[in-house]
């Protein structure tokens, strides 16, 4: 496997910026913003490495969410808890938001609308592309949710709220 380091760095930087932007939108404080950026960078780095290793988008997204979730669980250790409080899970979610397949979702809805036109152009190809996009949206969101949830539940105690 050959890794294009510049590409990985590019994805990490823009993943960090995207996660920080969503962090501000979700009213994170400036204190938590570096955590958001780190979470986004970590998630996008993992996903990019997964994709470069030949994994499909869903598998790479699952691995990325799991890694971000594990990193978030480390923030619950006594030393880091004083710095980040209980922000860990929220940081992991913010880091994974840039991996939500918004473009595929838009493509799938466009495809569905195109299929219902009075005389759809190239209907069979459109149907296959639309279904592919739709399934990718469903599976990728499921992969992200599963990756985040599994890591959160492994550590979880009965009174996890505390």
């Amino acid at each position: 496997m050959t890794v294009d380091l510049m590409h990985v760095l590019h994805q990490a930087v823009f993943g960090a910026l995207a996660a920080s932007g969503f962090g501000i939108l979700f009213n994170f404080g400036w204190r938590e913003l570096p955590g958001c950026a780190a979470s986004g960078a970590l998630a996008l780095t993992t996903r990019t490495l997964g994709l470069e290793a030949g994994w499909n988008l869903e598998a790479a997204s699952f691995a990325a969410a799991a890694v971000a979730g594990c990193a978030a669980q480390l923030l619950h250790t006594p030393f880091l808890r004083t710095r980040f409080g209980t922000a860990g899970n929220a940081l992991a979610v913010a880091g994974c938001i840039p991996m939500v397949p918004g473009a595929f979702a838009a493509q799938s809805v466009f495809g569905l609308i195109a299929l219902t036109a009075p005389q759809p152009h190239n209907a069979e190809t459109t149907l296959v592309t639309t279904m592919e996009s739709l399934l990718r949206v469903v599976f990728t969101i499921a992969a992200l949710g599963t990756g985040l949830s599994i890591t959160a539940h492994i550590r979880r105690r009965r009174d996890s709220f505390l």
Partner: protein
Amino acid sequence: MANRIGPSDKMASQSGHAMIKDWINIPATLTSHDAVVLNHQELEQIAEAALLVARRLMETGSRAEVVHEACALVARGLGCDQVNLRSGYASLEITLDSGTNTITRMIEVGPLGVNYRLNHAIRKVVRRFRESSCTPAETVAEMTRLERETPRQPPWVVALWVGIACASFGRLLGIDWAAFIPVLAAGALGQAGRHILLRRGTNTFVVAAGIAFLSSTLGGLGARWAASTTVNLAMNASVLLLVPGVPAVNSQSDIMEGHPAMGSARAIFVIMLLIFIAIGVLIAHVIVGAPS
């Protein structure tokens, strides 16, 4: 409610019960309750406080499980024996028991958004219930204070950062550098418009369609003006501020954690929102003349 009921009182009364139960043979069903039986008025006040906490947690982006746990902690901390909560997408119902007294109350929930700082400030308050006693009136006052005093990022800061997030998201999707600034500007203007419309109380789905149209059109026209070769991607990237990422993740968590009704409702919300966003982007594609 004048008297304070804290965990230490409950423990003392429970140990007292255990002694009596050992000495004379009282059936377990009669001794299992707390010695302090709350009347309906007290239960009403506790229900109000617990529902207020649950409602604010829902509105600021918590999963259903966290809402249930927080609500139970608050109600038990205030002296209830048994707490049952039912969470729906637009309302919460609670049933509280103390001895033989029972009440059921309901509260409406406002639009579900994400507000990390308020959410965590509420969680901190709830956590304090384990360590110190509190009255329902103090709980309600604390919630009101948190809502009033928890800082929010200024709207222009949010708009700027959302623009940066959209442009960065665009780079991840593959837009070229020429489209970067147009997408940033379109995202920022879209967020500013969304903020204004939501403050005016406009329907969430109408806002999504309208802002998707505005941002996508501005992003597309700007990218074309900047001689970008990725106009189509720029139009999609400009609306990524609207993608309901947190509800999508929460929806799955809710189903996994035993709240399928809430999870399904969130999933339907996500699907509906995506449809409205797509409609806005589709109209923008027709106007800009870019193929969809």
